């Protein structure tokens, strides 16, 4: 198979291919989807079931457990995590990570089916379990609307219009609004007054439901036409409520509702959640784009639409962008494309410098077409331009030129020796195509761990493997086809007896080094071994990490107050905190979320479950580098806001979001034992000098007041439990007696007892209970014997059906989670566990472990393929053995690089390390092939060895230099920084290794003795 001959003779075909790549690539570059992070489905859904009035324990036992048992049978299940709270059961269902996005809807359907089968056997009073399967959706565009001078009703109207209009935009999939101030109609009654009138709540409820439901009219036949008879709606039905009259039982007098009750529209007393932006109440809009659209375009359209709408609304309404993925993506992708261009340019320039402008142009053009071709294929295969795929391109950049360099240089040398272009090309391509292909596949296989990993991290990084695969394969194709073709035009045929160009100082130096190394080959070997071993030994000095922090100028302040806190108190404290943050220098805006977290506006942020005692500040600073300073200052300042609560700072971290960096989980049955274990663990964390933000997820127990229901007296008085419960509701938080539909909004109508200030326990004690059967009011204390004060669990967490308490903590600001974890691990493991209890570590340790395990599962196969190819290439044993002996030495450069740059060895460095293997093996193969060829061509072994090494010096060094230069721009990207350092440091050393160690090993293995010539 003579590919080069084919491409030179049928050059039109190659040109066609090149043009397709260029034109298609440019077209694709414009059209290809852009995203901030790779599409990554959070394979989780949430099941929410309400069980009003039940305690957390009752919810757990009667509801959560039932649902968990029903779901347990699903084979797709990876994990079940449940939280039972008073009145609510939340279950998070995680599906095994190897199910892909397309399969998920089916799994959720099955889940729903199982739940609906179950629903008949759930306790009475529970709602139907609701499956929230878009729980993991990422909203890229996040806005806050503030309109301080408008009424809640008006703001609701504005937000309704904005939402409706945004949904009409092409490419917008979903718009979620939040923070709309809920309103209710409150009717305050004086209990004694209505008691005197002999009226009861059932009477009022009946009255409201009779008058507020939608009414149907009738129709008449008039002269063959149908005429509808309508019942005119009252213009303002809130007024109408007050005018409803109720007939007093026992006589024919009637009284208007407004005469016995004060009726008003009020914001709900206990809101679910509240949003604020820069100190004003706000409504947030979270917009998510459809799956296959360009987020940048959608973002532009949405922003434009918002501006249009604002022009239509009265002045005083502001819409601010909390998070604009479109902008970030545009900036990031533009920056990356710039990086890419810089890389292409740098590599081309480097080639021109080292190989002369002709080779520079030949390889540069090949590189450009390869890159464009890669973009084209990515577009065709629906891969997006995002952080990972762009990074992959830059990583691949250095390796892309390797094939072309080898071919181009060979042709140039050959042609310089007077051979025709066709002959030179044919010779070189035939000679190198298989080694190059093998080396390329080995390079690709080094990344296969990621491609084959079915962990979350694997999915996150899949495009890295895909891009490497596409671009490297393309680079080989073009190296054997296009490069010879270009070489034909650019290289000149030299005279037959070309004067041997004087060896450069560089290669002279190398020659000296090599000969010395070969001369003292055992000493060289010893040195290499010692260096390698010491590198392994000092590996422990490198900081361990997982994913690095993000560079967005945003950080989070989580506020946790005791679990029993009322949302109104949380709100008051959040307002105080908000002011402190806003007054702080360097802060440009603050969004506050009370009672719940923000929407999942980026993949890097995992929202907190609704909790009244929780608040979140999303702080935007003017300069991302100031975050540590600002965060530390704020942590100190915010302490004064609430002595019972804590403010925790958190920076965004790349990779799928994780709840906490340090976690320990205890599982078992008795809450008291679990709490005790948790306390012991907490004490260990507390005693550590730098670990902070220690907390557990069962949180504080809450107060519970139980008015005892006296069956006997209640029976005598004809009071039912319903009467009793309604009386309690009425005397405390309010009793829902009806609802009013007004426009698209449903107002609940709440009856409340008229008291001076906040209702308290005495108001309850002194209230009266309506006896439905006797139609009389009975004193509350007649029905209730006593009021019991108790504490109860408010949050019961279960993990895979076992009660589990999780103790979370964060490492100090300037240490990695790994360092902190290693200090406390042993102590926590030493805690004595009662039988039936178990301990597991979570946090970064677990996710890093899982990721590495998943990667590890894919690695052996990848390495096997790499090994097989290396054996196949040579068809012998000793050469592959040399290669695989060299591979472990790659660590030297990595350790040196990371230690010098003071960077942690994280997941990305691990990837870099793997790709380094590929590059190292590739270089080694190229060199070994040449040595074998030279020796087979009849040169004396030693001479062949040295000459081959010297002749490979340029391509190998060039390939290394280009790769190093290629990844250099990535140093400034926080996500890729450690990877780029790993590759740069590792490759620099690996190149040396290849050039020295391979010949040394070769001479040892093939018993080539050094003799002075």
């Amino acid at each position: 198979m003579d590919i080069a001959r084919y491409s030179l003779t049928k050059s039109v075909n190659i040109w066609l291919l090149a043009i397709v790549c260029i034109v298609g690539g440019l077209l694709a570059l414009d059209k290809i989807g852009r995203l901030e992070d790779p599409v990554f489905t959070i394979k989780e859904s949430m099941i929410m079931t309400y069980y009003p009035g039940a305690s957390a324990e009752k919810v757990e036992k009667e509801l959560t457990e039932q649902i968990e048992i029903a779901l347990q049978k699903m084979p797709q299940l990876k994990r079940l995590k449940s939280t039972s709270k008073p009145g609510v059961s939340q279950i998070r269902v995680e599906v095994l990570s190897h199910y892909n996005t397309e399969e998920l809807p089916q799994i959720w359907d099955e889940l729903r089916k199982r739940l609906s089968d179950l629903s008949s056997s759930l306790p009475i009073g529970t709602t139907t379990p609701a499956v929230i399967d878009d729980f993991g959706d990422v909203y890229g565009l996040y806005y806050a609307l503030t309109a301080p001078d408008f009424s809640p009703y008006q703001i609701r109207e504005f937000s309704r219009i904005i939402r409706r209009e945004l949904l009409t935009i092409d490419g917008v999939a979903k718009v979620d609004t939040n923070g709309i101030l809920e309103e209710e109609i409150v009717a305050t009654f004086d209990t004694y007054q209505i008691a005197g009138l002999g009226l009861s709540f059932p009477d009022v409820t009946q009255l409201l439901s009779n008058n507020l439901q939608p009414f149907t009219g009738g129709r008449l036949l008039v002269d063959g036409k149908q005429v509808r008879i309508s019942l005119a709606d009252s213009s303002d039905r809130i007024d109408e409520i007050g005018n409803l009259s109720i007939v007093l039982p026992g006589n024919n007098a009637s009284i208007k509702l407004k005469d016995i009750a004060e009726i008003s529209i009020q914001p709900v007393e206990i809101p679910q959640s509240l949003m604020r932006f820069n100190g004003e109440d706000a409504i947030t809009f979270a917009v998510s784009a459809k799956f296959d659209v360009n987020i940048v375009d959608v973002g532009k359209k949405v922003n434009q639409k918002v501006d249009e709408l604002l022009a239509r609304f009265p002045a005083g309404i502001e819409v601010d962008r909390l998070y604009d993925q479109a902008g970030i993506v545009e900036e990031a992708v533009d920056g990356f494309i710039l990086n890419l261009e810089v890389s292409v340019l740098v590599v081309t320039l480097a080639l021109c410098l080292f190989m002369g402008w002709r080779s520079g142009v030949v390889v540069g053009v090949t590189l450009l077409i390869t890159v464009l071709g890669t973009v084209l294929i990515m577009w065709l295969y629906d891969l997006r331009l995002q952080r990972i795929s762009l990074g992959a391109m830059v990583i691949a950049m250095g390796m892309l030129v390797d094939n072309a360099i080898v071919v181009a240089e060979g042709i140039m040398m050959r042609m310089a020796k007077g051979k025709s272009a066709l002959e030179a090309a044919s010779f070189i391509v035939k000679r190198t195509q298989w080694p190059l292909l093998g080396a390329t596949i080995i390079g690709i296989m080094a990344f296969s761990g990621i491609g084959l990993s079915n962990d979350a991290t694997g999915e996150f990084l899949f495009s890295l493997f895909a891009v490497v695969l596409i671009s490297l394969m393309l680079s080989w194709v073009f190296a054997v086809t296009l490069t010879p073709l270009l070489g034909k035009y650019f290289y000149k045929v030299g005279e037959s007896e070309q004067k041997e160009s004087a060896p450069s100082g560089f290669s002279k130096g190398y020659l000296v080094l090599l000969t010395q190394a070969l001369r003292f080959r055992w000493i060289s070997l010893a040195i290499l071994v010692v260096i390698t071993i010491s590198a392994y030994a000092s590996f422990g000095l490198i900081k361990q990490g997982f994913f690095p922090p993000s560079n967005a100028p945003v950080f989070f302040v989580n506020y946790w107050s005791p679990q029993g806190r009322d949302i109104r108190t949380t709100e008051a404290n959040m307002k105080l905190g908000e002011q402190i943050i806003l007054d702080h220098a360097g802060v440009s805006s603050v969004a506050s979320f009370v009672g719940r977290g923000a929407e999942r506006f980026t993949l890097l942020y995992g929202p907190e479950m609704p909790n009244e005692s929780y608040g979140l500040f999303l702080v935007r600073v003017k300069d991302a580098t100031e975050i540590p300073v600002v965060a530390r200052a704020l942590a100190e300042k915010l302490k004064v806001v609430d002595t019972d609560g804590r403010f925790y700072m958190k920076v965004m971290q790349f990779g799928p979001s994780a709840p906490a960096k340090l976690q320990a989980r205890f599982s078992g049955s008795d809450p008291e034992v679990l709490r005790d274990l948790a306390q012991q663990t907490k004490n260990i964390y507390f005693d550590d000098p730098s670990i902070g933000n220690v907390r557990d997820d069962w949180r504080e127990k809450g107060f519970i007041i139980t008015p005892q229901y006296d069956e006997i007296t209640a029976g005598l008085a004809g009071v039912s439990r319903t009467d009793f419960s309604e009386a309690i509701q009425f005397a405390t938080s309010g009793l829902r007696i009806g609802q009013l539909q007004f426009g698209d909004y449903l107002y609940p109508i709440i009856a409340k007892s008229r008291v001076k200030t906040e209702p308290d326990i005495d108001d309850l004690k002194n209230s009266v209970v309506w006896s439905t059967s006797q139609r009389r009011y009975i004193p509350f204390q007649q029905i209730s014997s006593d009021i019991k004060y108790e504490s109860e669990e408010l949050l019961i967490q279960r993990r895979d059906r076992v009660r589990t308490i999780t103790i979370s903590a964060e490492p100090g600001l300037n240490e990695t989670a790994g360092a902190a974890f290693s200090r406390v691990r042993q102590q926590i493991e030493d805690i004595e566990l009662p039988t039936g209890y178990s301990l597991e570590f979570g946090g970064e340790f677990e996710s890093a472990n899982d990721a590495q395990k998943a990667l590890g599962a894919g690695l052996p196969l990848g390495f096997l393929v790499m090994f097989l190819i290396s054996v196949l290439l040579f068809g012998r044993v000793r050469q592959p053995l040399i290669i695989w002996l060299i591979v472990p030495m790659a660590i030297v450069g990595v350790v040196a690089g990371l230690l010098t740059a003071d960077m942690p060895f994280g997941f990305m460095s691990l990837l870099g390390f793997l790709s380094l293997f590929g590059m190292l093996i590739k270089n080694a193969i190229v060199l070994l092939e040449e040595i074998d060829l030279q020796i087979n061509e009849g040169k004396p072994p030693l001479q062949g060895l040295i000459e081959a090494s010297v002749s490979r010096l340029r391509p190998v060094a060039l390939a290394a230099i280009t790769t190093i230069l290629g990844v250099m721009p990535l140093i400034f990207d926080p996500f890729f920084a450690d990877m780029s350092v790993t590759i740069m440091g590792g490759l620099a050393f690996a190149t040396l290794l290849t050039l020295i160690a391979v010949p040394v090993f070769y001479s040892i293995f093939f018993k080539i003795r050094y003799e002075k010539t």
Partner: protein
Amino acid sequence: MKQWIYLSLLILVQSCSEEAAVVSETSPTVVQTFTAVTQQNNQAYEFPAVVSAVKNVELRFEVAGRLIATNLVKGKKVEKGQVLAQIDPAPYERKVKDREVRHQVATNDLKRIQALYKKGGVSHSDFDNAKSLFETTLLDLNNAKQDLSYTKISAPFDGFVSDRYVENNSYVQVGSSIATIQDRSTLYFSFDVPERIMTLNSGNKDVEASARVIGLEDQVYKIHYVEHEAIPDPITQTYNVTFAIDNAQETALIPGSRAMVTIQTNLNRGQLIAIPVSAVIGDAESGFAVWEFNNSVVNKQAVQVAGIVDNYALISSGLTAGEKVVSAGTTYMREGLAVREYKAEK
């Protein structure tokens, strides 16, 4: 921030002396404390009561006739003796006249017969007849006079016209009530007391009671015990209890209005300890605990909560007055934690 400076200092110090670090590691946490106080466990009850007048007198005519004048404006204050209604007196005046004439005739007859009898001119029986006729006619006359006086109704006591049942010029039958007059000098507050409270306080008369009228909550009146029913209501099983207020004229109390009666029993049921609710944390077995401040360390102490008043929890056992508890940041306390008491700056 401070901690970090502290820590970096620590590292510097550590290089000089190893012990220094150990000492400063246990720098105590500053906590806010609260000294437990005693609280009398006096039960206070509140009941909705109906205000009623002590005396309600219905006015009725004992004679029939047509009303010619009434002075019965509902709600009007009347004084004792004030004429409130009058029936046309003419028939009764005529009747008096008639009876007077008959009596005069009888008197004259008696005088004449008596003179004759003394002279022995008439029999003893004739004298007796004349004498009884005289007495009968006198009786008739007095009856007629009384009837005449009954044509006017005057107020029996100082009070208020609470209701009127007939209008002027209407014909009134004997015995039909025409109006009700209330005596408001004393007002009753009656309310239903649950049997539980009744039993608990049986025999206890040492109570302080006050009443507020709905709509005028700021005005508090002192009231006193009057009586209570001995048989409970068959349905509600509650006992009707009456309290009263004297000299109620000057007050805004109106019989029939609704009032809130607050009764404070002075029966001492032992002392409770009051501490802020924020100091109480949930503990094992649905119980509660506090972090007791014991000279620079905190210890967990189980307590029993008997009630909550305002923002204070009433502790029935586990704590004595004068002991200090941590009142803020309780979540971050742990057994034996070294603490220092927070003293507010002056």
